[in-house]
Structure formats: C-alpha cells, structure tokens
C-alpha cells in the first residue's frame, strides 16, 4: 500500500522534503505510479551541493576515475528508471511513496531516535506530550537508509560503487572524524561520547603509530601483536628484584622466546622497559643440548661458559641474556645426569656472580616437560631464580587469519547485507562466504528479496510452500528466520534487511546443498540441529492417545470390560508400581501386562485376592468400564487422562453401585487384618468420595468425621499413627474455625521415614481430593535429585518436579501448578532448598501468596502444603546411620531390584572349607571366606550374623568384581553425608527456624524399625528353610538381599514379603534340594546377582524366581 506523499513529508526535515518533492516530480514526469527509492536517488544526485554525489566522489576504493563512475551511475540510474512501468494514460499528480522508500524513511527515523544525543530530546518530548513524537528525518540519515535498498545498491553496483562505501563516506564528512550521526548501537548504557566506532582507536591509543591518525582508516589489528604483549611481560619479569629469570611455559613458548629475542636485538623500544634496552643475547641452547646428550665433552661447554662470562664482564649495555632454549632437551630420559647437574651448577654460579647483569631465559612447551626437569633438579627454581610465565597465545600461522580491511563493511550495522552479484566486481568482495550461487537459485533469491523489500512483510512461509524442496529443509530455513525474530521489536527496517539476509542465506544453503552437492556450510547444518528438538513428549502423547482409541475400537466390549476392571483392581490396590506402569504404557500394554502379572502371580501366589476380585468385577455393567475407556481417550491430555479416567471410573464405580464391594476389594489385596472393620471403613470412603465431586473445588475440609479420616489414613499409611493423629487434629481444628482465616494449611513433617511421609501425603490427597491428580511433589534437595536415583520413589509417577523439565525452575513449576487448582503440595527437604525457593516459601506462608520469578502472584489459599525436613527439633540432624541401626533408611531407599541368586555350599567347619567346596564344584568364591553362620537353632545372634555377612562381602571383593558397584555406593554415602552437613548452612538453618515458626503444625515422624524387621525377615526365612530342608542347613544372606527385602517391606508391606518367602523362596529351596543333595552341613547363601545392569532389569524388588547356580 503506497503512502501519500503528504504523509511522507510529515516525517522529514525541510531539506529532505525538498529532495522528496524533487523525486516526486521525477516520478510524475516519467509517468510512474509510485515514487521509489530510485527516484529519490536521482533527485539526490541532481540537487545542488548533493551530499550523495559528494560522498560518491570520496569513496576511496575507486577503480576508475570518479567522474567516469558518476557518469556511469547516472546512466545506470536512468536505465533502471526507464525499466519501471510507466503509464502515460493516467498520470498521477503526486505519485505516492512506494513501500520500500517509506520503509527506508521509517528506518532512518528509528535510527535517529536511537541516537544518544537525540535520545533525551525525544524522551522529553515524549513525556511532555502524550502522543508519539514525530521524528523529522535528516537528509543524511535518509540517504543512508535508501542506500540499504537492494534496488539502489544494484544501481550503484552497476556503476562500480558499493553502497556501503558510500555510506561510510556519508557518515564521515570531510575534515571531521567525528560524525555524530553514526548509528549508535542500541546499548543500554548511555555513552558519554558519541558512539563513534571507526575513528576512535587513535584517540585512546597513544602508543600506536602515528600513521593511524593519517587520513582515512587504518586497520587497528596491525597495532599490537600478541607477540609484543609477551615480550612486554618478559621484560616486566626481568626488571623485578627477585625471580627475574623468565621461563616461558606454553605450547607456543618457543615462538614467544624467539620473538622476544628478536625484539631485544632490535632494541625494541616501547615494548621493553628502558633498563633493558641495551641487552646482548647469547644462545647456549645448542651447546647444552649436545653436551647433556653426550655429543661433546666438558671442555667445550666450559669454554662456552667462559665466553659468556667474559661477555658479561665486558658488556657495556645493561646486561646479557643467556638463552638456554627449550627445556625439552634437558628433560629427556637419555640425558646424562652428571652433565645436566654440571650445566645447572655452572649457570647458577654465573647468575650469582653477575647478579643484575645476567639473565637466563628459556622455554618449555608444557608443564609436563618442566615438571620432568624439575624432578631432576628440585631446587632449580631457586638456583636459577626462575619465574614461570605462562604463554597462551599462539603465533598466527597464516596472515590470512588476520582480518582484512573488508571488515569495514560490517562496521555499519546495516551495511553488508546485500551480497548482490554485482559485488563480485568490486575488489573486496571476496569476503563473502556464499556469493557463489548458481543461476537458478540466484534468481529465485532475488525474487524473494525483491518481494520482501517491495511488499514489506511478505509471508515467507507461503512462498516456501511453493518451492519444491523437502519439508525438513524448509523447516530449517524457517528456523533461521525465527532466529531473526528477536530483532523485530527493534526496527522494522532492520527486520527487513535481516529477512533479506535470511532469504539469501537460505538460497545459499539450498544452492550449495542441491546444485553443487557440496557439504553444507557449517551454519546450516547447525541450524538443522537447532530446529529439531521439538517436544518429543507431545508426539509420544499423541501416539498413546492413538493407542487408546485403537484399543477401544479393536477390542470387544467384554475384553475392554476386563481390561478396565483389571486396571481398576490394580489402581485400587494403590500399588505404586502399577500407577507408574499406567503412566508409561498405553492401556493396551497395561492389559497385557496385567495379564502377565496375573499369570505369573498365579504360579506362586495363593489364588486369593486377584482372582476373587476379578471374579466379582466381571459381572460389572458394561457401561461403567466402557465409559472409563472413553474418558481415557477423548480427553486431550493423553496418558494422565487415562489414569484420571480410571480413577474417575473408580469413583463412579464405588458411588454408583454397592459401595462396599470395590473398596472392599482394594483392601483385600493389602490388609487382611482389617477385614473386621471393613464395612464401616467402606462407608467412610464412599461418603468421602461421594462428597468429592460437589465440594472438592472449594475446600478440602469436608470430611466430617475426624475418626473416619484417621482410620482411613492409618490404614493406608500403615504406620506413624501418632503423626497421623496430629495431622488429622490440625485439619479438624482448622475446619472448625475456618471462618475469617486463610484456607491454606502448612505442615512440616520432621524426622526420618521418608516413604511414610510421602504415603501419608498421598493418602491425604486421595481422601480429600479423590485422586492424586492434584498432588504436586517436589524434592527440594538438589543433590538427591541428581546424584543418585531413589529407585523406590521413581516408581511413583505423580506430578513430580524433575530438574530435567527444561527451562522451568522449581518456582515456575510450583506457581503453575498452584494457579491451576487447590492442591496438596509436597515439598521435601526444604532445609536443603536454595535461598530463592526458601524466600518464596516464607513469603507464601506469611502472605498466602506465592510469587513466581516474574513476580506474578498466585493465591495459595485452599492448598495444603506439606514440607519435610530430616531435621529433628532443635536443629539436630537425625542420622539413621548411627550405631544403633544396622540398616539405614537411605540405603533401603537406594536398594535396587536385583535378581536373587542362591549359592549352596558345604560347611566343613573352618579350614578345609575352601578346598572341599571347590572340589564339589558348585561353590562360588564367596564361600571360601571364613564365615560364621546363622544357625537355624537361633544360637547365633542376628547381629553377629550380619557382621559376618558384611565381612564376607568385603572379603569377596578381591574375587568378584560384581561387588564393585556396591563398594562405590558406599563411598558415595560417606561423601554425601559430608556434603549434607556442609550444605546446611547457618543461613539455611536460621531460615528454617523462622519458617517453622510460621507454619501451622509441625509433625514429628518416628524412624521406621528396619532392624526389627530385618530380624523378622531373617527368622521367617530360616523357618522356611528349616521346613524344607531340615534343621541342619544353614542360611547366610547378603546384606544387599536383606536391604532389598526390607525395601520391599517398606514399600509394599509385610504381607507381600511373607508371601514371597512362603512361595518363591520356598520353591527355590525345594529346587535346590533336588539339585544338590543336602547333607547335614550344607550352607545356603542368598546373594544378589548383579550380572545384569539395573537398567535392564525391571525394578522388581521381589523377584519371581530364585536363581540357582
């Protein structure tokens, strides 16, 4: 859309308006529909005292005489103007201003506004009147912007000019190096002086040669070489009082040494301190090297040293520098030690005698070489009074790597964008990386460029669709252009030129890739990689969604019912593992897995819970389960929605039909003891659940009966009754006096039993909100999150914050989740959180508002916060690795689900063991170590047994590398313990005290009794073995196995482990008995088999089978 001339006039100063009017007149005369930049150029050239013409004459790299070039310019301009379509018929009185010209005006406006000296002026204007001030564009700025126009630069190019040269000439008027109107970078800092950037080196730089200030522009890089810098530093060392003999160290140290010596010989003034100007250099490198290698005898070297001495004595200047050269020669293995010592002594002696007149200098390529030399002459640093000088800059191998003067193209920010083919003519154009495009690409590129500059903003993507390129390539280019996007805000002109640059780059890439079949230039290939990290999660999610729908369509109703019901069973049993598997598999997988499980469980479990449940659930009305499936795949949020669907299903199932049964079933799997109180509990549940849909969004304190809540919680958590009581009390208290108070509730759970805490929170969330959907878990201790995986916790797939969530801080994550809905927020290890999070939490607890990093605040009312610390009251760290406990919580939580293996050996009382065991051929080396065993009669104390098993484990290290990982993890423990103590700083502690003051309730958790449990498990296992084999057989268990079993108990409850012992282990014993004829003295040992890496094995703490050797 062309702009009316009057509108364009409003943006210009008087001088510029006159030029524009002239241009409009030209356009009218020629009958053109629009006034373009070309008209403007023609007008600029024709006005008297034309600054453009003058600038053209001043461009320096003219190959032809200026007059000739100007003639050519006029010619090419008129030719271009002739080419423009003209319509004689409907002549416009004032041909409107074309978009490209208007864009140029806008661009110069923006530039002018950014210039620092104008900045304050416009700011004042801006503040005084409310409307956006109109910047009157000065002629010179306008010229510069017009020169950016590709059409113009082509015309100029045809005449042998380069628009960037003209630009520079325009920017720098004659006789003045201080063109104020250079483009200032949009720096945030206001500069005290005009932002010159071509001509200011001279002023700040007194040491550089005078030639720099001569006319025009000398390249600054020629001013100082790194070599000079090194020489200066060497000089500085040499004038010191102590340690004044430099030893240059670095890959290019020899080069630096050479250049220093050259400087010395040239009496390098300006580089070296005045004291060192008259130096003599003696090089003894060759002699020393030959001498220490035994190629010449002592006499020769003696002679040489005497020579040196004489020279020092007779020297008239400031002294003598003795170059002993590269240390490598003296550091080699073949070097004769005595000779070396002689050299060192002699040089040291010379130094002492002629202190102040004699310097040593040398070089070494790396520290290793110096170190080797140092090893042979430990006191060398003192003897030779050495100072090591690191040399880090390479000598430039090629002059070619030095920038050439074509750099100045890029000095003007907008310059150098247009690598039009005409550039090829000019002498400096070789610097373009990618001018070489084939004809076809070139044309296409130009088309796009023209389209861009004419149409202002053209939709690039549509154009790209027309091209026949593969889509990934288009994507890449899109990416490249996206990279430009940030600049959009700055200036539309810049955007345009950047876009053009992007287009050109694109075509370069395409051309190179397709037509030349050359390897892609580096930039392009990297853009590829940049583009690709598209969110894999969404794709996967979509796939899953697809699966879900497939599932429902492919299967009959009957099977989907079954699927639903089985899922439900697993969900209801609150088996943590199941939840995670639901998250990671599609329903289809779950179905098969569920079946697998069922099959496998049948093999060793009493056909109790699972079968019963499915039997009851099968006659479910079809409607409910199919509804759940529908829920699963219609909602947009993929897998979580499946879980949600299932949980909804659970709700609907329990509320819709007899409330007793499903809830009842979920218990059967877990706790048989509670069967007595089944009915009442079920009532509680259904009551809560049915309340849920109506009230949950407003407030969570809707469980009317605290006793019910307590019972339900105890049942689900299974321990920590005292803590639960306190929690329930607090909730109820809050409920009664909710009026006038904030709705958020803050707990702090202190002490050990991490799983217990988590379980309680999960249970709370499920009971209060009906599902774990609104549970947000964050472990704030930064170490645990990264350094080792708590396998047990990984099994839970809640809304857990993971540091790998890219670009999102914990705070953002919390704020985002809190803003969604009232939720239960579980923050672990707040004492180890970083200060930022801690501050936010303090803020939230005191004001009820949580603010994210951008300062946006989120209301946390109606949310339940549970924070945990391992601190006990009084700031004492609870350490479970104290003397009193054998099995620490940390180790249990870190236990891995290894397969368990059974080794059988014969205990032949002490010494003969090893021999016999190997003879029998069925023993592993572990058995060779001496052991004390846990007698089935119970005569040996369990503790003792454990000690010995530990020892066995240690002793076996030399044989079995399988145990190495375990050893490592032990080391880890100790460091992590150290770090933990360290990391809780004083500040953090004082913060915690403040924080605890503010929260609603502090709840102390008791440690979980792992030792007692371990005893019980051991006893159970012994009993089992006793039953199968008889009392004479001994059982030995590796600590890892015990830990694994303890972890299973901790996670799933005693019953599971008991069952496992009764079935799996028993089977194992039976199998072993068959295989080996147990006699009275046999020993059965359980070890964890670490042959398979934990990644490969599923995390099953209770393996379905015992491996025998």
């Amino acid at each position, binding site marked *: 859309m062309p702009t009316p001339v009057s509108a364009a006039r409003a943006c210009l100063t008087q001088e510029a308006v006159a030029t524009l009017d002239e241009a409009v007149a030209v356009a009218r005369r020629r009958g053109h529909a629009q006034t373009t930049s070309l008209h403007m150029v023609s007008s600029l050239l024709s006005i008297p005292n034309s600054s453009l013409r003058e600038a053209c004459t001043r461009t320096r790299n003219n190959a032809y005489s200026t007059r000739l070039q100007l003639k050519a310019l006029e010619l090419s301009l008129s030719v271009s103007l002739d080419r423009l379509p003209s319509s004689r018929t409907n002549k416009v009185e004032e041909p409107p201003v074309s978009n490209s010209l208007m864009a140029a005006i806008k661009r110069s406006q923006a530039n002018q506004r950014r210039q620092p000296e104008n900045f304050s002026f416009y700011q004042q204007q801006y503040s005084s009147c409310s409307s956006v001030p109109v910047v009157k564009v000065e002629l010179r700025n306008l010229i510069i912007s017009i020169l950016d126009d590709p059409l113009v630069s082509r015309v100029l190019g045809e005449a042998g000019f380069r628009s960037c040269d003209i630009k520079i000439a325009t920017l720098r008027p004659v006789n003045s190096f201080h063109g104020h109107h250079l483009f200032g970078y949009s720096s945030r800092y206001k500069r005290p002086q005009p932002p010159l950037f071509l001509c200011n080196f001279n002023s*700040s730089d007194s040491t550089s040669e005078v030639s720099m200030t001569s006319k025009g522009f000398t390249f600054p890089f020629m001013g100082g070489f790194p070599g000079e810098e090194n020489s200066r530093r060497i000089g500085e060392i040499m004038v010191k009082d102590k340690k004044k003999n430099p030893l240059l160290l670095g890959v290019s140290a020899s080069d630096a040494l050479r250049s220093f010596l050259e400087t010395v010989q040239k009496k390098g003034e300006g580089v070296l301190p005045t004291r060192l100007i008259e130096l003599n250099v003696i090089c003894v490198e060759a002699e020393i090297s030959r001498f220490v290698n035994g190629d010449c005898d002592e006499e020769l070297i003696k002679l040489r040293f005497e020579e040196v001495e004489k020279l020092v004595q007779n020297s008239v200047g400031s002294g003598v520098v003795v170059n002993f050269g590269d240390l490598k020669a003296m550091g080699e293995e073949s070097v004769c030690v005595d000779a070396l010592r002689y050299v060192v002594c002699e040089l040291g002696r010379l130094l002492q005698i002629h202190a102040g007149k004699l310097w040593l200098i040398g070089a070494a390529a790396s520290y290793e070489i110096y170190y080797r030399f140092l090893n042979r002459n430990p006191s060398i640093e003192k003897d030779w009074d050495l100072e090591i000088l690191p040399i880090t800059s390479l000598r430039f191998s090629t002059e070619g790597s030095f920038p050439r003067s074509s750099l100045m193209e890029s000095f003007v920010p907008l310059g150098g964008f247009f690598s039009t083919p005409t550039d090829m003519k000019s002498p400096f154009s070789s610097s373009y990386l990618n001018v070489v495009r084939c004809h076809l690409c070139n044309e296409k590129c130009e088309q796009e460029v023209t389209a861009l500059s004419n149409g202002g903003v053209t939709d690039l993507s549509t154009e790209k669709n027309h091209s026949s390129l593969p889509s990934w390539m288009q994507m890449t280019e899109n990416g490249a252009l996206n990279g430009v996007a940030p600049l959009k805000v700055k200036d539309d002109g810049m955007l345009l030129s*950047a876009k053009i640059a992007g287009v050109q780059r694109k075509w370069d890439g395409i051309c190179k890739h397709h037509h030349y079949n050359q390897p892609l230039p580096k930039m392009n290939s990297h853009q590829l990689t940049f583009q690709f990290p598209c969110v894999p999660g969404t794709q996967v999610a979509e796939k899953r969604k697809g699966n879900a729908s497939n599932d429902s369509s492919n299967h009959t109703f009957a099977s989907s019912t079954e699927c639903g019901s089985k899922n439900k069973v697993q969900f209801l049993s609150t088996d943590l593992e199941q939840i995670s598997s639901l998250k990671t598999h599609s329903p289809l997988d779950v179905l098969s897995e569920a079946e697998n499980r069922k099959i496998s469980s049948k093999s060793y479990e009493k056909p109790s819970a699972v079968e019963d449940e499915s039997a009851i659930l099968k006659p479910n009305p079809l409607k409910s389960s199919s509804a759940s499936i529908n829920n699963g795949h219609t909602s947009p949020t993929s897998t979580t929605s499946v879980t949600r669907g299932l949980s909804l299903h659970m709700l609907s199932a329990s509320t819709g039909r007899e409330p007793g049964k499903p809830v009842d079933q979920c218990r059967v799997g877990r706790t048989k003891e509670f069967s007595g109180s089944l009915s009442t509990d079920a009532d509680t549940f259904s009551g809560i659940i049915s309340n849920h849909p109506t009230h949950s969004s407003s407030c969570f304190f809707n469980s009317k009966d605290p006793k019910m809540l307590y019972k339900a919680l105890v049942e689900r958590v299974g321990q920590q009754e005292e803590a639960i009581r306190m929690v329930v009390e607090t909730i109820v208290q809050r409920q009664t006096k909710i009026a006038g108070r904030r709705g958020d509730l803050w707990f702090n759970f202190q002490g050990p039993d991490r799983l217990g805490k988590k379980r309680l929170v999960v249970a709370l969330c499920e009971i209060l909100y009906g599902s774990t959907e609104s549970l947000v878990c964050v472990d704030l201790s930064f170490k645990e*999150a990264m350094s080792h995986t708590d396998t047990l916790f990984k099994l839970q797939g809640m809304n857990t914050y993971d540091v790998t969530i890219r670009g999102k801080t914990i705070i953002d994550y919390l704020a985002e989740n809190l803003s969604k809905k009232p939720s239960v927020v579980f923050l672990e290890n707040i004492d180890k959180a970083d200060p930022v999070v801690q501050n936010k939490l303090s803020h939230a607890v005191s004001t009820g508002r949580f603010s994210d990093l951008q300062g946006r605040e989120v209301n946390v009312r109606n949310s339940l916060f549970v924070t945990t610390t391992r601190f006990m009251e009084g700031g004492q760290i609870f350490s479970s690795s104290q003397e009193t406990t054998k099995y620490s919580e940390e180790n249990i939580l870190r236990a891995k689900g290894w397969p368990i293996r059974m080794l059988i050996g014969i205990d032949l009382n002490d010494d003969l063991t090893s021999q016999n065991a190997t003879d029998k051929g069925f023993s592993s080396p572990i058995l060779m170590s001496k052991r004390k065993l846990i007698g089935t009669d119970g005569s040996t104390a369990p503790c003792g047994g454990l000690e010995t098993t530990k020892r066995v484990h240690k002793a076996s290290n030399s044989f079995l590398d399988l145990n190495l990982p375990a050893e490592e993890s032990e080391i880890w423990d100790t460091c992590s313990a150290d770090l933990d103590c360290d990391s809780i700083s004083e500040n953090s502690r004082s913060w915690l005290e403040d924080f605890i003051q503010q929260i609603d309730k502090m709840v102390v958790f008791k440690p979980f009794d792992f030792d007692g449990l371990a005893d019980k498990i051991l006893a159970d296992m012994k009993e089992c073995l006793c039953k199968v084999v008889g009392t004479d057989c001994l059982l030995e268990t590796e600590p890892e196995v015990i830990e694994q079993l303890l972890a299973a108990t901790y996670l799933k409850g005693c019953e599971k482990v008991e069952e496992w012992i009764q079935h799996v282990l028993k089977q194992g014993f039976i199998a072993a008995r068959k295989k080996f004829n147990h006699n009275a003295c046999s020993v059965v040992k359980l070890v964890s088999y670490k042959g398979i890496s934990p990644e490969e094995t599923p995390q099953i703490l209770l393996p379905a089978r015992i491996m025998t050797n």
Partner: protein
Amino acid sequence: MGQSLLEALHVRVEGSGKKILVLAHGFGTDQSAWKHILPFFVRDYRVVLYDLVCAGSVNPETFNFCRYTSLDAYVDDLLHILDALGVDRCAYVGHSVSAMIGILASIRRPELFTKLILIGASPRFLNDEDYHGGFEQGEIEEVLLAMESNYEAWVNGFAPLSVGADVPAAVREFSLTLFNMRPDIALFVSQTVFSSDLRGVLGLVKVPCSIIQTAKDVSVPMSVATYLKNQLGGLSTVYMLDTEGHLPHLTAPNMLVEKLRLALSG
C-alpha cells in the same frame, strides 16, 4: 586505572554472605547473563560481577586494541578488580573465555582462589596432533570471515547454534548481548580466543577446579572436559549437565545452580 576501571567494567558486588564468589561471563554475553544464577547465591555469598572489557555493555572506547591482544590483559583486569575490592580469597565461576582467564589468574595468584568452576572451558579451540579442540584452522577462518562480512547475520546464525537447547528466550538474550558487541571488537576478541593455547600451562594450576560440561556443546567437545580434568594440576572434577548448549546459565539455570552449589560445597 584504579576506580575508573571498576566503573568502566561495571563492577558490582551483590549479596551479604561471608565468602566471596566471582561470576565472570563469557564471550558474547555480559554480566546480565548471570541474572538467573545470581539470586541463588546472594544470601550465602558476596557475589562480584563484572563485565569483560569486550562486552557490548562496556564503552567500546575502553577497549584498547593494543592492550587486549592476549588473555593476560584480561587477567590483569580481573586481578586488578579483585585487589581493588580487597578480596583475598574467593571462589571463581568463569564461563567460556572467562574460564580461561580464571585459569591464568589462578596460576598467577594461586592464593587468591579457593576454587575454580569452569563452565564450557576449553584450553584450545583448534585441533592439534592428538588434541581435539573441536575446530580446524579452516573452520575458524571461516567463522572469522563470516563475522567479518556480516556481523548481524553471523550473530543470528551463531546465537541459536551456541545456545543449543531449544530455549528461545535464551537465544534472544544471547543474540542481544552478542549483537551489542561492536563487530570489530568481537572479531578481535575471537581472534584472541582462538589463538590462545593454555594446554602447556594447565599443570601450573594448583587450585581445585570443577569443570561443568553440558552434554552437547558446539564449541567445546566432551573430550576437552576430560583433557582439562587430566591436565589440570589441582584436584579437579567434571560435572555433567544433562542439557545442551554452550550457555547453561541461560538455558538451564536451575540445573546449573545445583551443580554450582555442589561444586562450591565440595
């Protein structure tokens, strides 16, 4: 010099802790790059921030083409700042070129540093016999040529490349600070950086170092981190960051903070 240098390089001291932590930015950024990291340390540390003389935020007149021909001049600046602030012990976090500066500074004044944390550090970018720095001479010349011919285009290509991870905000930020550098200074500094070789002197470093390396860094291959670890004279550890890009403090500040805290406490 004196106070004027502190002003020119925008030296800031933030925070109230006892220990001193220096955060030094790398090529193409300025101290604002630490803004995501800074809040995590102001409580426990006094954090010293400054701009390298080549940063876009520093008045380009300060940049003396004759002085800053090698990294040693930058080291001078750093030591000068620390001395002027009266710092006698500090932990130092340096990114890219500042990591190299830190290494050199610790060689010169080992007693000044308790710990060096090197992010995206490389003793030498050029490949050499039995050393893989990631760049061939030709490639570097190409890069320099690209910078020379069209700085803005180079910035637009280089920024996403260097940032690596798909974090548009970080790309934006980096392009901005990179573009703020005057092209000739940027070119000159990259010359200096590419032409420096610290391999020979690594053994002189006695200060314990932590090397933080991202999984994929276009400027620093993984082998360099291992090389550094093996060659550095002091106790050194490598921390891997499970992200990509050369600028983890922009792309994954939370992950970096964890590693930094770990490195500082260890």
